[in-house]
């Protein structure tokens, strides 16, 4: 009998806990339970048999922790233990018709971005277990708290076997897993990946799981699995507090939400399974069997955030190198910070989703896409739209994306449909379909509609759900083809009304070649929203566009009682005020606040200024102009005005070249700040603030420079907290101080392995390396790092610091300098780099 038929129309009973049963049999403290498959097979078989006797139709082989990382050093291999476990389960099941599941638990190490294990490594680990367990009838992935890890396991299971896959994750009472994954994200992501059933196990008793199961039912149409603990353990006795009758009674309440596959986790034993069997028999007779009826509105997600497209949402378009020199340079230099800063400004501006496009000449697009997606999901929680024309780039991104993504795009060309639709299906994404084909973009709305309909049918035939199909009716520039705008809008309306699909448009293209583009853009945007646009791809940093969106939602009664509009108004300046300010600034007539002269800088004496014509460039005048600039920048630094720093720098760039701004303005200003800090006239927080402003100024200069490094700062210094140590507050202070003295700092972070430090030192030609350690246990890795640096022949000096170090010890481990505090690091840097 095929197991899939088994839960199609009836309940399926799983087993109960294995670990607790083995402990009762005398498994020694601290033993690896999976080794018992070999050392005590009789125990394992007996536990399986007890569950089968009570009615389990599926037994989980004793393979929960059988992965290559956990077994390392145990003396056993994965194939050995998994093979034995499946054999034991088979023997126990003989003659009973019970099915055997390969049980896969978490690896036991944290995945990136929080942990060190990469997604690809996790996939490899799971693949080995799956390969060893192909003799099972199905694969169960359970007790997952990290959606990323669950995804790696599902991909491994599907790509290394044809077995059905069940997945259960472990939630806390706040309906989140420890890593923050929500119920909706689990359902959207795992159902998309094509698992056969999903649900929850462990951590809570049935009563606490009840609301979680209810929520799962709202997000998936798959059969729901529930394997609760026997209540909660007592802190003193460690005994669980829910008895079998009550356990079964509460589980019964879950059936109406669509729970169909049941069993027990920690603290349960065969009598819990027996009670479940009785309860399920009763329920079948009472006709409680229920299919879930989930949400059918498109939602996209990351583990932390689910964005439901129940109303228009903004896709931020700024992570895209097209027409942006600074962005292309950042890509070439793999400057992730720049790319992430583009993400943050859009998030602050109110984007709901972020488009990611990293295609540029000379870039390994797939590699860069993976890097960018991983970097983005390490700091933001907005769902992403993966944007590329290349199937291999899309696939690379979809693999490592954690959640449910939107893909841009497929079009009506046969080659495109064939290459891209299978990827959408396999990875469970949603897809934007462009209404063009082999013959280009048809002029008429009806023709575009026809292409949309054709793509929709093809997508459906691939098994892609209707809600995951979105249509882009394509915006053409109205200056080139005036009638095109209305055709596009007509097509949007037709797609919306006749096909019932969500729509996407890149709205900024409309105004190319016309004056006052903003007014064309905002008007067209409003018209498009009215025609049925759901997802505009636009620049959220343009206030008028965001205002248009908010206004539309208020007018269309989407924003109930205009509350959203009102709260937006509280935090954002209205259009006309912004425009007025911009105009005034351009005209140079912004009423300037009288510049308070910061202490320590001689005031500019107007009487001493030579009587030369305005704009004169003689040394005397230039010197005076620089002095004035230093004062302005200093003020911005000391008051922490980042935007002001940027604005000032942009102004200077119009007047003189970037190197002289760096050498004659920024560095002297930073020196002044440093001096004041030394003399105790300003304190650390101001120093940090100043560094933040300086960073903005340098960024502004970078973005104006053409390709080719800047060589801006005085020299590059590498900083790291050594392997094994997380204490990084001190190292971070050192970083701030050094940056304030005008040095460029390459900060490798904390817990940095010696190899990484050596590699970076050689690659970047670093001449000064700073290492930090705060624990006696990590002095060893500091010593090791120094030894490796010397052995590799790195031409650098090494300074060390941290609470446990002494000058003597620093000398003993071969460091060139010991720094008692952060201030000394600047003196050392001066000595080494000048």
């Amino acid at each position, binding site marked *: 009998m095929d197991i899939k038929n088994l839960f199609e129309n009836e309940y399926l009973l799983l087993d109960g806990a294995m670990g607790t049963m083995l402990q009762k049999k005398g498994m020694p403290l601290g033993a690896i339970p999976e080794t018992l498959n070999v050392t005590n097979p009789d125990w394992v078989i007996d536990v399986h048999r007890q569950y089968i006797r009570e009615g389990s139709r599926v037994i989980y082989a004793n393979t929960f922790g059988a992965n290559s990382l956990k077994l390392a050093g145990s003396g056993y291999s994965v194939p050995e233990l998994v093979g034995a476990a499946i054999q034991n389960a088979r023997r126990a099941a003989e003659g009973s018709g019970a099915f055997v599941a390969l049980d896969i638990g978490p690896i036991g*190490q944290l995945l990136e971005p*929080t942990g060190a294990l990469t997604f690809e490594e996790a996939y490899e680990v799971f693949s080995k277990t799956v390969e060893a367990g192909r003799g099972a009838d199905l694969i169960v992935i359970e007790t997952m708290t990290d959606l990323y890890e669950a995804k790696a396991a599902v991909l491994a299971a599907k790509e290394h076997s044809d077995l059905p896959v069940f997945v259960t994750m472990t939630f806390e009472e706040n309906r989140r897993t420890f890593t923050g994954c929500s119920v909706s994200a689990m359902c959207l992501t795992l159902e998309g990946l094509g698992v056969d059933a999903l649900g929850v196990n462990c951590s809570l008793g049935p009563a606490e799981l009840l609301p979680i199961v209810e929520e799962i039912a709202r997000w998936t149409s798959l059969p729901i699995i529930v394997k609760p603990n026997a209540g909660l353990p007592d*802190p003193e006795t460690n005994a669980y507090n829910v008895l079998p009758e009550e356990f079964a009674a509460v589980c019964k309440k879950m059936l109406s939400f669509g729970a169909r596959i049941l069993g027990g986790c920690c603290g349960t034993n065969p009598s819990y399974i027996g009670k479940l069997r009785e309860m399920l028999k009763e329920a079948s007779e009472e006709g409680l069997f229920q299919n879930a009826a989930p949400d059918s509105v498109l939602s996209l997600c990351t583990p932390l955030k689910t964005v439901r497209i129940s109303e228009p949402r903004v896709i931020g378009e700024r992570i895209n190198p097209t027409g942006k020199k600074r962005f292309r340079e950042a890509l070439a230099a793999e400057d992730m910070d720049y790319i992430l800063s583009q993400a943050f400004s859009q998030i602050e501006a109110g984007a709901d989703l972020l488009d990611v496009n990293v295609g540029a000449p000379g870039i390994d697009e797939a590699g860069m896409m993976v890097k960018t997606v991983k970097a983005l999901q390490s700091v*933001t929680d907005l769902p992403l739209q993966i944007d590329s024309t290349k199937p291999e780039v899309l696939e690379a991104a979809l693999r490592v994306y954690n959640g449910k993504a939107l893909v841009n795009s497929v079009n009506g060309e046969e080659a495109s449909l064939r290459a891209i639709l299978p990827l959408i299906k396999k990875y469970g994404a949603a897809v934007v379909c462009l209404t063009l084909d082999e013959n280009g973009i048809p002029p008429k709305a009806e023709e575009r509609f026809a292409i949309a309909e054709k793509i929709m049918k093809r997508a459906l035939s691939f098994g892609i759900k209707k809600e995951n199909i979105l249509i882009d009716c394509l915006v053409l520039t109205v200056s080139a083809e005036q009638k095109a705008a209305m055709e596009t809008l007509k097509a949007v309306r037709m797609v919306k009304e006749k096909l019932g699909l969500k729509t996407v448009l890149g709205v900024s293209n409309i105004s190319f070649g016309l004056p006052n583009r903003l007014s064309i853009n905002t008007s067209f945007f409003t018209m498009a929203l009215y025609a049925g646009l759901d997802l505009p791809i636009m620049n959220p940093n343009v206030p008028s566009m965001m205002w248009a969106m908010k206004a539309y939602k208020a007018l269309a009664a989407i924003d109930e009682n205009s509350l959203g509009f009102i709260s937006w108004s509280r935090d954002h300046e209205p259009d006309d005020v912004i425009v007025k300010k911009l105009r005034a600034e351009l005209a140079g007539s912004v009423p300037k606040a009288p510049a308070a002269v910061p202490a320590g800088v001689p005031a500019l004496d107007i009487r001493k200024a030579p009587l030369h014509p305005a704009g004169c460039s003689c040394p005397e005048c230039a010197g005076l102009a620089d002095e004035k600039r230093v004062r302005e920048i200093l003020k911005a630094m000391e008051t922490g005005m980042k935007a002001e720093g940027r604005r000032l720098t942009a102004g200077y760039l119009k007047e003189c070249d970037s190197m002289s701004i760096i050498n004659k303005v920024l560095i002297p200003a930073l020196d002044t700040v440093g001096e004041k800090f030394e003399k105790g006239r300003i304190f650390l927080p101001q120093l940090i603030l100043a560094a933040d402003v300086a960073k903005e100024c340098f960024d502004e200069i970078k973005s104006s420079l053409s390709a080719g490094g800047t060589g801006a700062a005085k020299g590059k210094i590498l900083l790291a907290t050594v392997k094994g140590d997380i204490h990084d507050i001190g190292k971070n*202070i050192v970083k701030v101080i050094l940056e304030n003295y005008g040095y460029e700092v390459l900060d490798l972070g904390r817990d940095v392995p010696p190899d990484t430090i050596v590699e970076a030192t050689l690659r970047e030609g670093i001449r000064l390396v700073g290492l930090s350690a705060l624990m006696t246990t990590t002095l060893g890795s500091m010593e090791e790092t120094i030894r490796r640096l010397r052995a590799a022949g790195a031409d650098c000096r090494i300074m060390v610091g941290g609470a446990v170090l002494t000058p003597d010890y620093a000398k003993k481990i071969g460091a060139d300098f010991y720094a008692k505090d952060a201030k000394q690091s600047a003196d050392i840097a001066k000595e080494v780099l000048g």
Partner: protein
Amino acid sequence: MNAYKVKLNSLDGRDALRYLGLKEGLADPAMASLFEKCKARLLAVIDARYVYRVFPFAGGLLEGSAYQPRGGTIARHLAGAERVILLAATLGSGTDLLIRRSRFLGMTETMMVDALASEAIERVLDAAEAGIFSRLGPDPHTFRYSPGYGDLPLEGQKELLEVLDARKRIGLYVNESMLMTPSKSVTCLIGTGGNLRGEAKKTCRDCSLDGKCSFRQNGGTCYR
């Protein structure tokens, strides 16, 4: 052995300022308001939990535990205790995410959030300690002694966390170099009952830095 949550409603920021080397506090009103903003942001993402287990203690051994503390300083600390509590606490992974994210708001924010989080984990431990003794009864007990302090080896950390089943109960992981993730996490031992001889309040006596650290040199300590 059960997992408990701790809800922190406020932080006074005193420890954080000390970690940042600011004995005088924040005079600048703009800085002070930024500090408050960081506090609010941090408090909103902290998802603090702790897990503990109480073991009978006799002859220097925890009965029924795969983890045993080694070394002279911990022996002295637990001397005379009848029971020993193993405790692990964490602020959760949301705090690490916030710290990673702060980098894009500015260095000031990052350092403030980081230092505040270090303070927060200490307050969570205070709350855990109070919770434990409200359940056990208000017995006298020693201060919290962490692996890595005195000569109690950090290497025991892995076993200690396994005994507490900390990964499953509170989502706390440890790697081969004994680093815990989420990073704002702490493990410790507390002795209680019997003829306790260990101090109830933290001292510098067993610290490998005894007196040589920057805190002491500035006339303070690294603890409250």
